[in-house]
């Protein structure tokens, strides 16, 4: 146990350092929060219009969709839309080689850094978004548009666990983007691809239950569902009991698989990485 703690120390320090560093960027957090509010209101209004214009049975209630939307805005920066900008920068400047000079497993070195980057950015943004959507809106008399409490104690507990998994899963996906960035020596292609996949398949654009029925099985099983759809549906009480556990299990399975695949790919990519210069 002591040996394991010692071997984790470098990664923990890397995490702590980047976390503290990222927390300093207050202006970026406020700007990001403003944009996320704006988009949040637009999405809520679009869904309200949709629910007014339809009489058919919908998979989620309007209140659930509104809560789902605000959660999405609060945790937006946990989504792996882009590779780690630090990795892109290292690829541009050739500093990747310095990271190979550290007596660390380069995959986990970058994995912990990516995790710190995401968590540090999400903390202030989520705090502001919860304050606005769950506290200020009701006070302002806009209670029907508010972010509601979790559906039950069980939902709250499972959601908390799911959010820890979201961070781990998202970092694993982000690492795959990083690896693509290193392999192609440019972040453009990898980022464009990731943004499309993540936006649509996570449920960030439209909650996945609103997609056609024949797609539902696939949508529930693919790795991006764990980033948004599964945890938020647990929160609003749409996924409960055995199905909620199935959702959490698929997140764990994907996380482990993607870490494994990423670790293997990284070894291959780095071994043929050629550092330019005489």
């Amino acid at each position: 146990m002591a040996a394991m703690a010692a071997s984790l120390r470098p990664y923990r320090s890397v995490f702590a350092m980047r976390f503290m560093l990222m927390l300093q960027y207050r202006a970026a957090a406020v700007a990001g929060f403003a944009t996320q509010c704006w988009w949040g209101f637009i999405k809520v209004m679009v869904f309200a219009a949709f629910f007014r214009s339809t009489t058919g049975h919908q998979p989620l209630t309007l209140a659930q969709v509104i809560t789902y939307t605000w959660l999405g805005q609060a945790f937006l920066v946990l989504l792996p839309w882009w590779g780690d900008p630090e990795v892109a920068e290292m690829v541009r400047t050739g500093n990747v080689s310095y990271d190979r000079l550290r007596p660390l497993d380069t995959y986990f070195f970058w994995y912990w850094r990516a995790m710190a980057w995401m968590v540090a950015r999400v903390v202030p943004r989520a705090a502001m978004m919860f304050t606005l959507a769950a506290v200020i809106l009701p006070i302002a008399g806009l209670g029907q548009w508010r972010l509601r409490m979790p559906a039950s104690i069980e939902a709250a507990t499972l959601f908390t666990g799911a959010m820890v998994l979201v961070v781990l899963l998202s970092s694993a996906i982000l690492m795959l983007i990083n690896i693509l960035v290193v392999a192609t020596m440019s972040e453009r292609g990898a980022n464009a691809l990731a943004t499309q996949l993540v936006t649509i398949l996570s449920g960030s654009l439209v909650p996945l239950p609103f997609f056609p029925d024949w797609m539902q099985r696939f949508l529930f099983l693919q790795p991006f569902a764990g980033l948004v759809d599964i945890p938020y549906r647990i929160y609003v009480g749409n996924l409960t009991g055995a199905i909620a556990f199935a959702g959490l299990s698929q997140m764990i399975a994907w996380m482990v698989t993607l870490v494994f695949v990423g670790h293997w790919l990284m070894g291959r990519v780095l071994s043929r990485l050629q550092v330019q210069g005489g």
Partner: protein
Amino acid sequence: MPQIIVENLSKTYRVSERQPGAWGALKGLFARRYRVVEALRGISFSLERGELLGFIGPNGAGKSTTIKILSGILEPSSGRCEVDGLEPSRDRMRHVARIGVVFGQRTQLWWDLPVADGFNLLRDIYGVAEADYRRTRDEMVGLMRLERLLDQPVRQLSLGQRMRCEIAAAMLHRPSILFLDEPTIGLDAPSKLAVREFVKALNREQGVTVILTTHDMHDIEALAERVIVIGRGVILADKPFESLRTEVLTERRLFADFVGAAPDLIIPGATVLHREGNSIELSFDPAVISVPQLISRLSSDHDLVDIHIEQPRIEEVIARFYDLHGATEA
């Protein structure tokens, strides 16, 4: 047994090429053409513990490639390389824990962090025990005079200050070998002197083995007893710097001032390069006419005011050497 053994080491890169223009770009999408660049073509040398080796050569000669292979970043295409009994690219994790590396053109310290925080992070990354870390850090801070820099973010440091911090950072885990790739590039004169003093102290007093690449021949003159000259991927010379100098350029210069106008001199073995007013500049070969002979010739026939003799400038020696071997980059 030598600490570093390099045997017949080769490295080839495959560089993708594309023809200029839009049509070339389009063709490149379907059939990519590759050019093979031979960065190293079978180099061999060995280094004993505590040696200080200077690696010089024109741009593109293979210096950095050699450093990158020795530090475990690059895999050699063929040949053998062993450092302290380990094969760098195979045993990367164990190997890199024992070496220190500084690339003059790159930074290893975290740009936004104060220097001291960067040092602490390196302590954790290398797993250095707290007491050892404190001792080494204080020693390095003293040697490099970094006290005032520790609480400044790296991005606010001048290049000279940063390079001093970089070298100190590379020593925090007490490596027995230090690789320095162009550590004085772009530095002003006092910073260069400071870096040289520091490297010298590490090598002479602490017995750290140092491999240094540079384009600044004064680095070599000040530091390295042994020099490897590399050009187009092969070793052109591996010998003490002084013997390199005497082999390549025997010519010396003599500058003399006379009481009256400088005379028109005809001395065998010496040629007048420049004559103006009271001064004259001669080039001579000490093998044909020795310094005492030349001076006595001058002083017996003319009234001298001042006289001094110069060795050829070190840059000229090296440029001449590269020319002789056709080593300069095409």
